[in-house]
Structure formats: C-alpha cells, structure tokens
C-alpha cells in the first residue's frame, strides 16, 4: 500500500525530498520546508492516495544539529487505511508555512507547537500560546529549557540561577 504513496510522491516531488525511510513499516519523507503545503495538498487531493485526515502536527528538538527542529506531520487516508509522515528541518527562529488553509485541525496543533517549541508558522491566523499563559517565558519542550527554573518568578526564587539538566 505504502509503495503507491512512495512512488507517486517521489515522482511528483523528487527534487524536494531529501530522504525517504520506511522504518518499522512506517513511510516517512524528509522534505524541504518550501514543499510542505504543496506536498500536503498533493497527498490530500490525489485520487489514488486521498490522505484527507491531518492526524497530527508536532516537533522534535535535536539540540546539537545545525537545524535543530524537526516539524513532523502525520496524515491518514481513510481509503488506504495508511499513515504517512513527512517532516521538515528548521533552524531556531526560522518559520514554516502553515497548513491552516488546508485543514482546520492545523490551527490548534500549530498553536501547540508554537507554544511549546517556539516554532513560528507563516500565515497562521491566530498564533497565540494555547497551553501556557501569555506571559510565560521560554518554550518548555525545547531540550535546553532549564528544568529547575521556575516561572513565574517570586521573591523567594528570583535569585536562583537557572540550571540546565542534560
């Protein structure tokens, strides 16, 4: 099943795909971030694929890499009953295009990634923090977020130095 997806996506986006993997039977593409929207649309609208369900958007922080963040998308096809994953590498303070125009789900999922990782989504209509309060400093799911540093700061903890635990 996933072979169809693999062939069709490779034929269409060959030059934008940096790597294709199939570990644990899960098909995954690493793509250029400029191709995210076009690829998502293609996967959704192609008659043989029909990945119409945007299951998840999330990110992983690989601190030591030059482009530290991976933004990861999972799509699901009700016809093929298959998932496909594609991801893009972005550096800190770099933004990725939004998928809110394609799926309404993307709105909150991207807000969550923005809140917890600090990755910006270009063109998002309402990019606010969703889990944490607006005054919160930092993005807790980053690997260099100090685990012993408390916000909000009060008199009893304001002089304590932040400590990074690896």
């Amino acid at each position, binding site marked *: 099943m996933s072979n169809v997806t693999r062939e069709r996506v490779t034929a269409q986006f060959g030059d934008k795909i940096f790597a294709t993997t199939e570990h644990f039977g*899960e098909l995954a593409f690493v793509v250029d971030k400029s191709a995210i929207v076009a690829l998502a649309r293609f996967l959704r609208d192609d008659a043989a694929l029909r990945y119409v*369900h945007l*299951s998840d958007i999330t990110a992983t922080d690989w601190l030591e890499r030059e482009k530290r963040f991976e933004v990861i998308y999972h799509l699901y096809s*009700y016809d093929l009953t298959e998932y496909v994953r594609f991801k893009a590498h972005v550096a800190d303070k770099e933004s990725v295009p939004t998928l809110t125009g394609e799926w*309404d789900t993307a709105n*909150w999922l991207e807000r969550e990634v923005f809140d917890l990782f600090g990755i910006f989504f270009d063109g998002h209509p309402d990019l606010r923090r969703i889990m*944490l309060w607006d005054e919160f400093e930092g993005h807790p799911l980053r690997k260099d977020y100090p685990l012993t540093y408390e916000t909000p700061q009060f008199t009893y903890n304001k002089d304590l130095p932040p400590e990074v635990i690896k």
Partner: protein
Amino acid sequence: MRTETMTVNLGPQHPATHGVLRVVLELDGEVVIKCTPEVGYLHTGIEKTAEAKLYYKVIPMTDRMDYLAPMSNNLGYCLAVEKLLGVEAPPKAQWARVLLTEITRLNSHLVWLGTHALDIGAMSMLLYVFREREDLLTIYEAVSGQRMMSTYFRIGGLTEDLPSDFEPMVRKILRTFPARFDEYENILTNNRIWRNRTIGVGVINKEEAIKSGITGPMLRAAGVKHDLRKARPYSSYDKFDFDIPTQEASDCFARYQVRLEEMRQSLRIIQQAMDGMPEGRYLARVPGVVRPTKEEALCQMEAMIYHFKLVTEGFHPPKGEVFVTIESPKGELGYYIVSDGGTMPYRMRVRPPSFVNISALSKLVVGRLLADVIACIGSVDIVLGEVDR
C-alpha cells in the same frame, strides 16, 4: 434600540464544561455569533516529564491524561513501545487487553451519558450510570488494585495474571448490562425534552468533520464508517466480530445513538473475549526487555538479575520513531515516540482525540442558542486531562 453584542465567559469553573474548559462566547441576544474555546488550565507537561523517565515509568502518567479511559491510554503507549522493541504480547495478554479496553470504553461512554444528560436536564441518568460504573470499577480494582488509575498494562503484557474472581464479575456485567441499556433508551430515546434538546443541535457535515480532524464516535455520527479497530487492527481486534455503528444526521442525538450502540457492541466483544480467553503466559518472555514475572524473579537467578537491571537501568530500544494509533473511546489516540537509543524516550508526543475534537466546537455552536452550547460541549465528550495533558 441597543444592538451591541455581549461577551459571556463560560467557565473555566463551570459544571457543564466537564472540567476546566473556558469558552468565550459573543452573543447577540441569546444567539451565539462567535465562540472561542480556551484550553490549557490543566496543562501538566506530561510530554516533557516523559523525556526524563524510563520507558516503563511513563505508563502511570498515561493513566492521568484521559482518566475515564486509563486502560486505553496504557494500551496505546504499550503498543507503541512494543513496536519500537519488536515485542509482541502473548495471546492471553492480547485478549485480556481487548476485554479491558472495551470495559474502559463502557466506563467512558457511561460517564459521558450521565454527565451529558445531567447537563441538559435529565438528572436521574447520572445516578443510573454510576450504579453501572461501580461494577466496572470493581473489575478494575480486582485486576489492578486501583479503581481509576489502573496502570495494569505493561510493556509486553500485563502486570499480573487475571484474578480468579475475574470471570464471574465479567459475566455479571454481560448478564445485567443489556437490560440496563434498554432502560436508558426507555428514559431518553423517545423522551420529548431529550429529543428537543439534541435533534438538529450541533450539526457538522461530513466534509467539515474530516477537515476539522474529528475522529471517533463524532465522526461516525457524521456518516463516516471508520474505526481503527477494524481499519488497522491492533491487539488481535481482527479476531473479534463486531459492527461499526454509524449515523447520518451528525447532531447531538446521532452521537448519542452511536455511543449507545457502541456500548452494545463492546458487550459483544467482551463476551467473545471472555469465552475465548486463551491459556498461557500473561507476559512475553523477552529477557532484558520485558520484566520477568514475580514468580520467576523470586525463583531464578537470571530472572532476578534481569529484574534488577530493568528496574534500575531500563532497556535500550533501537534508534527510530514510531507512530501508533488506537481507537480510544474519544477517538484516534496516537503515540509518537522518538528513541535515540537511550533508556528514556527522546520525545513522546500524544495525539489527543479530545483536543482536536473540541477545537471544532465553534463550528457546532455558531448561530445557535446559548443553551445549545452546553449540549454541544457534552456531545463532543471531552476530558480536560487529555485536552491539556
């Protein structure tokens, strides 16, 4: 004549929001013209905490997300780690997992039915469903010692064997529940108040539902015949015979019908699982990865060493990433786990069904009356512990 609109703040401390959901409503008279759900009041950083815990220590935290369906959360997590490790639970564990996750589905749907009915005026339902839930929680307690946060599933199987009084308890619910469900239908299905409060309320069409990422009973009430238990069978679900209930109306009443029918189907699955429960081990035998059973650890030296090493150091799954989804009572529950070869998950992401479903709330309520907002929030079936994590 004044024509300005009014902003009403529903929640976070409001009994009909099922926890701490805050909904900012803009009203024109009594008609909702804008609805903004705000979440995050229960954010506990489970994904972050999981990065600093050994793999097996994450299981208790998954209970605390959707606290009405702890076993479903356990199952999703265990399946994801098992996929990463290449371990498969033995048949008895798989059957028991199916049985207990269906009991969990009953538990979750019963509480949903009681609270939803309470929200829109049928108070006695809550008392009836909690009577039934007591039987389910007794089973929880018998298998795991806990009534809510069961933590019963382990990577590779179950914590311990099913107790000897397990079968009579399950037979009891199989015997009593069908009549109880008929009782609920007698109270609600043809009740005029219930029908007026739910029929035609909170409609979202099929295309919009898919575009909004809605999954689970809500999606099936919109006419999509899809269930991950059938589409991508896990834990031997392909060996069980059950139907996927669907409705076309996609209103609150359709969701009620779908969930009620799902409960009956769950009983069918429980019946089959109990009748065909295989004999054998409840925990896979994979030295160095799956913890030995208590008897083995106390009687065999190697098992004792493995036990000690697994508890203190943990195991090292191969590098890679997996995304495993299951059909939880609320919808598609997914676990995305990234391993860097260490003993703790490098990243654990939970794909929460309630979070995505409630994000479509404004589509259900805009243009309707304020009182319908309560019916709509109830029909989405959220648990804020899972929405915020």
